[in-house]
């Protein structure tokens, strides 16, 4: 079972980058991203695609994607996550409440089948508890078209007690800007095998482990 493969309890220690050790909002940090590069490479030479972006409304992402001739669907999934499950100690427990889980899925993933040609999920998935996580991935599979790509990030530092929540902004096809928003405890940590299991319905999964303990994952539908 998926649950057996995942370590639920993250232990203590540091965050990913010295620039992001402070909690709360901070200065944006630009970093190169192989995952982002791969994602946009998969869109090359195509126009009028529909891209789902979970980072919330941002001028940078909207301008970048629409300038490529694509349509963007923008939603702030982390905000919806906090609205549905709260931000306190019940954050994980609340995810097993079917009403709250249903609200999260409706707010973020209520689309007809095969609506999107790409999805920028960023680091949302790591804050979802297993039953809701699997439902979310199943919905993503449904709303993505075959051959489309999904980009997701997972913090890989198992010793960290909390992980920073970022606003992700696209600077260029290989570079993104990360603005810290808050600290949240990831529900679980993923290794390559657990990620393969999580996305087993999809065609392929590709990983990039970065020096700042971020696992960038490109999943092909």
């Amino acid at each position, binding site marked *: 079972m998926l649950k057996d493969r995942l370590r639920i309890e993250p232990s203590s220690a540091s965050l990913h980058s010295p620039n992001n050790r402070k909690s709360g909002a901070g200065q944006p940090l630009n970093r190169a991203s192989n995952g982002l590069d791969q994602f946009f490479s998969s869109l090359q030479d195509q126009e009028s695609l529909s891209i789902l972006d979970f980072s919330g*409304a941002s001028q940078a992402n909207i301008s970048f994607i629409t300038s490529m001739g694509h*349509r963007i669907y*923008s939603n702030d999934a982390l905000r919806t996550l906090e609205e549905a499950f709260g931000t306190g100690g019940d954050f994980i427990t609340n995810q097993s409440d079917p009403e709250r889980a249903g609200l999260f899925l409706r707010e973020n993933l209520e689309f007809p089948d095969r609506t999107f040609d790409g999805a920028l999920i960023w680091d949302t998935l790591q804050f979802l508890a297993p039953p809701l996580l699997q439902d979310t991935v199943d919905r993503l599979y449904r709303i993505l078209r075959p051959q489309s790509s999904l980009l997701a990030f997972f913090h890989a530092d198992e010793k960290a007690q909390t992980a920073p929540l970022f606003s992700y902004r696209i600077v260029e096809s290989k570079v993104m800007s990360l603005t810290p928003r808050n600290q949240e405890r990831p529900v679980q940590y993923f290794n390559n095998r657990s990620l393969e299991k999580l996305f087993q319905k999809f065609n392929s999964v590709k990983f990039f482990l970065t020096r700042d303990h971020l696992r960038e994952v490109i999943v092909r539908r």
Partner: protein
Amino acid sequence: MWNKRKEEEYPPKSTATPAATGGPIKENAPMSTNPTPSHHATESRGPAVIGKSVMIKGQIFSREDLTIDGEIDGSVELHEHRLTVGPNGKLQAGVKAREVVVLGTIHGNVEASDKIDIRKDAKLVGDIKTARIVIEDGAYFKGSIDIARPEAPRASAPSQSKQQQVSSAAGANNSTPVTAAVGESR
């Protein structure tokens, strides 16, 4: 003396808007739009305003710029004009305008032939179709964005459009001058 000074403060507005001549203009009070104003009166009055204490259910069509600071449930159409949704404005409505500036809340699809500007603390839930979009940090948006590339003839200047109409009426091929106008106008 006090009354005299008050009168001096508002002379242009009291003459420009016959509907508001019954008394002093109150801040945030709804201003009715006169259906047959003279051209000069419209220019000096500024955009029509639906104040924050006003709630309208139904369709709104306007042939001038409009500011909405109240609540609208229905639809709003200002095809060639600018719609501003003020900080207190709450629209549960589909919107069509040349330009839309949002400082309040819109729940509904928005079509802006020129530009949409979503300011900080504004909230827009719905699909957007526009030529240009500006979203300030802090704005909340949920929906899709379709950037509609402006068509060449629409980008031409008014005087050039007239020339184009004349030349097309004369049976001339107008494709070349229109393309040139696009380059000049923006």
